[in-house]
């Protein structure tokens, strides 16, 4: 039979309708996440718990350990780590929710409608990104209540929010890729320990200057270190566009890679299904 089919581009809708589709699917994704406290609450509480333990147990470390120059409180240092950890945790929902849609048949409902196939993915990731922004705002507000002030002021806060949004695209994109490849929620959940290894082997919780040996070497070459450090600079030192650009460009680069992979996985799934 002819080639073009079920994963086709022939949706026959204008650009405005496609934007509406993405908006509606993104809204669905956000609602779905917010209506499942079991999904977002651990992603807020766990980083807070780690920050509270670290601050209580090692709060004085900022006074003598290398790499904490200019840091007044360990909580200042951990703000970006908490945001990163929370987004890495919460962004997995983009994958698990996609597998739920596949397993329950809701994905088929979407495919049987004249929705642009890309809108399905973009809507899901848009939802993850907005959720990431909300997570960042919660941490900025909460840690602010405990005395954390962003040295770069409002622009620095906006940069943190932007960073969280793009980081959500990274983790959401990779999670969606895995979900579309496997259709298995378990496979997506297995990303969780991997993200934690990447997080703990970076400068998120301690500066690389305070590390030693191969651990320090891995952390120094971990892209997450460059992403976190660039944002932390805004919190600790002040507004610096080159630091922000370094952080955001790495994050955006990974986001492009993740979205490209997820889109390929979507196309492959559509081909397999047909």
């Amino acid at each position, binding site marked *: 039979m002819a080639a073009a089919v079920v994963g086709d*581009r022939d949706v026959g*809708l204008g650009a405005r309708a496609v934007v509406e589709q993405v908006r509606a699917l993104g809204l669905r994704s956000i609602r779905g996440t917010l209506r499942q406290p079991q999904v977002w609450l651990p992603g807020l509480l766990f980083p807070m718990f780690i920050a509270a333990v670290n601050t209580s147990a090692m709060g004085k470390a900022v006074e003598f350990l290398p790499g904490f120059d200019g840091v007044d409180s360990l909580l200042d240092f951990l703000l970006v780590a908490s945001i990163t950890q929370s987004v890495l945790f919460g962004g997995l929902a983009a994958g698990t929710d996609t597998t739920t849609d596949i397993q329950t048949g809701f994905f088929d409902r979407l495919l049987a*409608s004249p929705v642009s196939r890309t809108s399905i993915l973009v809507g899901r990731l848009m939802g993850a990104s907005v959720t990431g922004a909300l997570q960042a705002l919660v941490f900025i507000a909460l840690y602010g209540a405990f005395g954390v002030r962003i040295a770069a002021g409002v622009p620095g806060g906006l940069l943190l929010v932007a960073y969280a949004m793009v980081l959500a695209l990274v983790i959401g994109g990779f999670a969606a890729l895995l979900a579309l490849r496997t259709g298995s929620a378990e496979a997506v959940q297995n990303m969780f320990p991997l993200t934690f290894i990447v997080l703990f082997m970076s400068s998120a919780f301690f500066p690389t200057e305070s590390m030693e040996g191969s651990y320090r070497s891995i952390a120094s070459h971990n892209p997450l270190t460059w992403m976190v450090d660039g944002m932390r600079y805004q919190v600790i030192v002040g507004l610096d566009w080159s630091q922000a650009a370094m952080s955001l460009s790495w994050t955006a680069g990974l986001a492009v890679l993740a979205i490209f992979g997820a889109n390929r996985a979507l196309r492959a799934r559509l081909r397999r299904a047909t």
Partner: protein
Amino acid sequence: MSHPIEVEGLVRRFGDIVAVAGVDLVVKRGEIFGFLGPNGAGKTTVVRMLTTLLRPSAGVARVAGHDVVSAAGAVRRSIGVALQDAAIDPLMTGRELVRLQAVLHGIGRSEADRRGDVLLERVGLSAASHRRVGTYSGGMRRRLDLALALVHEPSVLFLDEPTTGLDPTSRMALWEEVRRLNREGTTVFLTTQYLEEADVLAGRIAIIDDGRIVREGDPKVLKAAVGHYRLQVTVAPHQLATARQVLDAFGDPRPSHDTTVAIGLRSGPATVSVALRALEDAGVPVEQVELDAPSLDDVFAEATGRRLEGSAIPDESGRE
């Protein structure tokens, strides 16, 4: 003008397995077409091909005048689909889902809200429209599923086993809604494994077995073609022989229980009273009378040599 659904030589293979082995079908405008068959016969595979969710391995299918392969987008804009198991996001409210479905079909937000109100009212879900779907009963979910399938006013509606698992009240309500839609001009393609459902709703049916259409046509004509009404009378045991002798004149004997005599009524149900009077004249009091019309199960059995397992609609206790 072309028919809403036209299928020629449709084939679908999964590796070495041939799930659909050359199906030809025509569904005419404004009819309810029942697509019957046991589990695994190929019903859902055919529906998935007709709704563009699955590419045919061979053959041609046109829905609403569009080829399901080369004009899949046009097909999707023209059809409403309520798939098996009512795949509905339990975290959303009924109203949110209707609005989402409308937007996916390119309908503006205000128009989507207007249509949503009308549809939710129509399927009796207005009061529950702000509740999350996860709190809905099975019947409510099916009705919402139907509303979602109708939001863009499709010309062809696919219902894939729409009443499976529903209680009798919900099933009757859904049947009534399907009839109403059909009266308003919607062509309905209904798959079911319940013979009664097809018998009650469909103007024409096709029976699929092992990936092939084994019978197609008007259910009444198909049933009439496979046999006669079955008359069964219960009499006193010592009068069984006499009763058999009397009823022989009205039709051929059929298998029956110890205290009953059964025949296939040769001249149709109109002769029941004559047969009963003949028994009375012969001095055989009749304790009980049963008259069974030929069923679609008889049609299936005649076509395939076996009965359609699980084809009876379960009662309220879930028994078939």
